[in-house]
């Protein structure tokens, strides 16, 4: 193993700039002569716009321009595209309404973009926006799934009857029906997956710039995938050819999915910059983030599990309704379908599964991928159902899971819902988690709590996720409108240092370190001599970006492929320098040696020879040492694991405290264990947040967002969570050379069901068998009270 190579907890290369305040986030960037944009947003959930009067705003001090949707339409600006199409059960396409950057005549949620003011200061732009008069004619609105699917529900889109975007299904309905008929027992559950607001700590921001002399546009934006933004905005919205559009995503303060999507503000500032001939900067206030960043989750489901008397799962039937919000955000249609229902097998060998998903439009912020994206929803549903089955059958949560786990020797395992798992050992993770959690000692701890008048519970959840998204041909067959490969370049500089160009953007994941470790391991170059560059379309050949725990499994593998090419070429150069055959060259520890001899050259010498080719096989080899690879994965990767939460409830107040939390995960090979642990910590706390604290609430009457600030939307704080215990149990991914699976989302997937199962366990002794999520103090108190009544 190289000193700072694979498997070492290398301290992060990127940290110095962040801990000294020298990070460079989008809002830290200021361009000469820039104007500030303020976006006037709809205060109503649903209304027709009869007129927009902007003259007074335009005349206000410091104001340079005021634009509306009509101005953009007049310039031929297109709508925001959707990157994933889903078909209905009958094969017909989903309803795909237009998604204007600024509306023209109808607003569809509180926060919809109505007008943009450009002024010399932020404050002046905001002052002037208050002078814009919009003549709204309010329309009835719907915000939740139940109301949206009611018979006489107001329509968000005239072209979407019943507010249905699509009505989709997966699996073999007949096989499932047959299995249910034969079942000894059926256990069913109704669950809500609560709507969440991602709240990356850095609010979104964008700066557009246009150079009249060259016709070049630049967009600085808080994005997880600048090349995707360039493609979508350039090709579909503004009609700018890619060689004239540079998109830079500098340091980005967290994403969790919410910064994948192409947002209207990016197009507005870019377009407006040309219109006014000055750079245009927009930065969201947090209140604005709440009503303009894509939200996450928001499912309502009914699920039934058919079992034999022995506890074998025979079939699973799921009916889910998902809220997509008012418009289709970039990847929205895929989240409640291919990223959700395909995971309903979980870690179990359930032979027949059928799931129906009806996704609906509502007068709310668009909903799209949020950490885990579909997979947390699947795990939550399944693990709540399995826990309930364990309780009602009396088989118990451990035994029932063990009885149904996919056996470690049955891989590759084809699930009834499209995926083929390559490897895993679910019982090993369960066993590890049980041991660390001292499950055996739980009864004693429960008694201790009871003596103090507290209710203690323990909850288990296993999970599996499909990461490393995705084999492009598979994704394409499922409706993706883009390839999902990744691109990496290894640029060896003449003196042997290495610049890595990657399409995977880093916004907290630590790629600048992890990817450098891959290079150090492969080439023996000191890690200080490796720099990782990301987030700039002018520097990086191409990239699909960072989401779905794909950076290492796809982006890292692209770099591995490029490294292989560099190594192969280096051997050829070394062979020439050493007058040997390239098959005889061994590349090890930064040296290229003729096998069985002491004749060698250093990698640095090879690099220099490549760029100063005075002694070089120019007849057979190009000079230079830089290689690019596109890597398209062969399959998804399947991280899996087991999480155990232990909670204590104060029955007087209903407050739930998470006392212990254990995560035992299988991420495949781990390149930097420190970074992986950190990913799990963060994910778990988001998962605990969903279980106990976070909920997005709309007022059903007015359609106003009631949890519109951090005063009301409860983000987990340091004193809300315990110290977490994190462990791994590794099986190597079989279809990538690194054996890696991805670690970014697991915590948010396993933690939520583990915590809620623990809460239900704590309350089961007093006759409670379900709690709403999030299990807020009042809800728990009410559940206790109702059980007592």
């Amino acid at each position: 193993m190289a000193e700072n190579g694979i498997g070492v907890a290398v301290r992060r290369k990127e940290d110095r700039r962040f801990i000294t305040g020298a990070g460079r986030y989008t809002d830290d960037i200021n361009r000469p002569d820039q104007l500030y944009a303020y976006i006037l947003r709809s205060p109503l959930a649903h209304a027709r716009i009869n007129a927009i009067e902007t003259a007074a705003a335009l005349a206000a001090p410091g104001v340079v321009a005021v634009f509306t949707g009509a101005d953009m339409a007049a310039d031929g600006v297109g709508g925001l595209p959707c990157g994933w199409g889903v078909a209905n059960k009958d094969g017909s396409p989903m309803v795909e309404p237009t998604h204007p950057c600024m509306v023209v005549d109808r607003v569809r949620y509180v926060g919809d973009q109505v007008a943009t003011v450009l002024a010399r200061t932020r404050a002046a732009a905001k002052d002037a926006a208050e002078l814009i008069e919009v003549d709204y004619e309010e329309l009835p609105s719907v915000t939740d799934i139940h109301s949206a699917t009611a018979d006489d529900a107001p329509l968000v889109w005239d072209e979407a009857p019943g507010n249905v975007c699509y009505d989709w299904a997966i699996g073999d309905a007949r096989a499932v029906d047959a299995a249910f008929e034969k079942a000894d027992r059926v256990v069913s559950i109704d669950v809500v997956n609560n709507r969440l607001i991602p709240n990356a700590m850095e609010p979104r921001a964008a700066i557009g710039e246009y150079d009249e002399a060259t016709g070049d546009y630049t967009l600085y934006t808080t994005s997880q995938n600048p090349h995707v933004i360039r493609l979508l905005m350039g090709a579909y919205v503004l009609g700018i050819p890619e060689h004239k559009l540079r998109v830079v995503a500098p340091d980005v303060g967290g994403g969790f999915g919410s910064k994948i999507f192409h947002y209207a503000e990016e197009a507005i500032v870019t377009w407006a910059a040309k219109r006014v001939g000055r750079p245009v900067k927009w930065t969201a206030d947090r209140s604005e983030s709440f009503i303009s960043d894509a939200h996450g989750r928001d499912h309502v489901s009914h699920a039934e599990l058919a079992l034999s008397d022995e506890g074998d799962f025979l079939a699973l039937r799921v009916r889910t309704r998902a809220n997509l919000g008012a418009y289709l955000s970039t990847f929205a249609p895929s989240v409640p379908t291919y990223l959700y229902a395909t995971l309903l097998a979980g870690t179990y060998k359930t032979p027949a599964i059928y799931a129906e998903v009806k996704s609906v439009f509502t007068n709310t912020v668009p909903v799209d991928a949020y950490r885990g994206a579909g997979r947390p929803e699947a795990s939550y549903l399944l693990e709540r159902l399995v826990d309930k089955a364990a309780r009602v059958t009396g088989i118990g949560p451990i035994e029932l899971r063990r009885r149904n786990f996919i056996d470690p020797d049955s891989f590759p395992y084809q699930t009834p819902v499209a995926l083929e798992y390559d490897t895993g050992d679910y019982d090993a993770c369960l066993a590890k988690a049980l041991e660390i959690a001292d499950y055996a000692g739980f009864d004693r701890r429960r008694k201790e709590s009871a003596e103090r008048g507290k209710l203690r519970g323990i909850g288990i959840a296993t999970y599996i996720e499909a990461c490393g998204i995705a084999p492009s041909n598979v994704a394409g067959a499922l409706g993706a409108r883009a390839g999902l490969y990744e691109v990496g370049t290894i640029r060896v500089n003449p003196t042997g240092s290495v610049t890595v160009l990657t399409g995977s953007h880093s916004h907290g994941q630590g790629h600048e370190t992890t990817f450098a470790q891959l290079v150090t391991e492969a080439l023996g170059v000191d890690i200080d001599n490796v720099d990782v560059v990301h987030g700039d379309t002018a520097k990086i050949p191409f990239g699909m970006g960072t989401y779905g725990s794909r950076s290492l499994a796809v982006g890292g593998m692209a770099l591995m492929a490029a490294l292989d090419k560099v190594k192969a070429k280096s051997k050829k150069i070394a062979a020439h320098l050493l007058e040997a055959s390239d098959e005889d060259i061994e590349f090890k520890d930064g040296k290229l040696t003729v096998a069985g001899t002491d004749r060698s050259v250093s990698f640095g010498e090879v690099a220099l020879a490549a760029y100063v080719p005075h002694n070089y096989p120019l007849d057979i080899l190009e000079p230079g040492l830089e290689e690019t690879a596109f890597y398209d994965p062969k399959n998804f990767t399947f991280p899996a694991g087991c999480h155990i939460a232990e909670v204590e409830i104060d029955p007087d107040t209903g407050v739930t405290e998470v006392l212990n939390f254990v995560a035992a995960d299988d991420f495949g090979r781990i390149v930097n264990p420190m970074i992986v642990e950190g990913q799990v910590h963060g994910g778990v706390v988001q998962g605990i947040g969903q279980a106990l604290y976070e909920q997005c609430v709309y007022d059903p009457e007015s359609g106003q967002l009631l949890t519109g600030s951090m005063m009301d939307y409860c983000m987990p704080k340091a004193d809300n969570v315990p110290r977490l215990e994190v462990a791994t149990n590794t099986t190597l991914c079989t279809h990538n050379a690194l054996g890696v699976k991805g670690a970014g989302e697991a915590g948010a997937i396993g933690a939520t069901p583990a915590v809620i199962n623990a809460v239900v366990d704590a309350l089961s002794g007093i006759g409670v068998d379900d709690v709403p999520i999030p299990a807020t103090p009042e809800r728990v108190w009410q559940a206790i009270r109702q059980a007592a009544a």
Partner: protein
Amino acid sequence: MTVTVSFVLNGEDVSVDVEPRTLLVEALRDRLRRTGTHVGCDTSQCGACVVHVDGRSVKSCSMLAVQAEGAEVVTIEGLAKGGRLHPMQEAFREHHGLQCGFCTPGMIMSALDLVSQNPDPDENQIRHWLEGNLCRCTGYQNIVRAIKAGAQAMRSA
């Protein structure tokens, strides 16, 4: 209408013309170009904007720039001396107390106020102290660990 406000920023006298409504964080970021102090919310919950004013941690998004008249203001940029990191900065790196880095300056400035009052805080005290600082990446675990280690390093420095 603008007014001039003068204060000491990271040991240097500065004067800047601001509107009365300009927040301290806006003066720091937009006028004085110290962009290490961040804005993560608009309701004073997140703590990304924490700086020290006269030795105590405050949220610079909830204080007017004019209220800093004559004060000693220290931001994250003022901690490393002569290219050497402050022990608390060092501890955040050593213990992986940051991921995206956005909350980090506020976390570090808040932590230093804690340590100035309690040189040896335990885990529980640190967690409670951080109620005014939100982080969405780390789950707080390594932040807590870093602050404990940073405090230890400061005691032995």
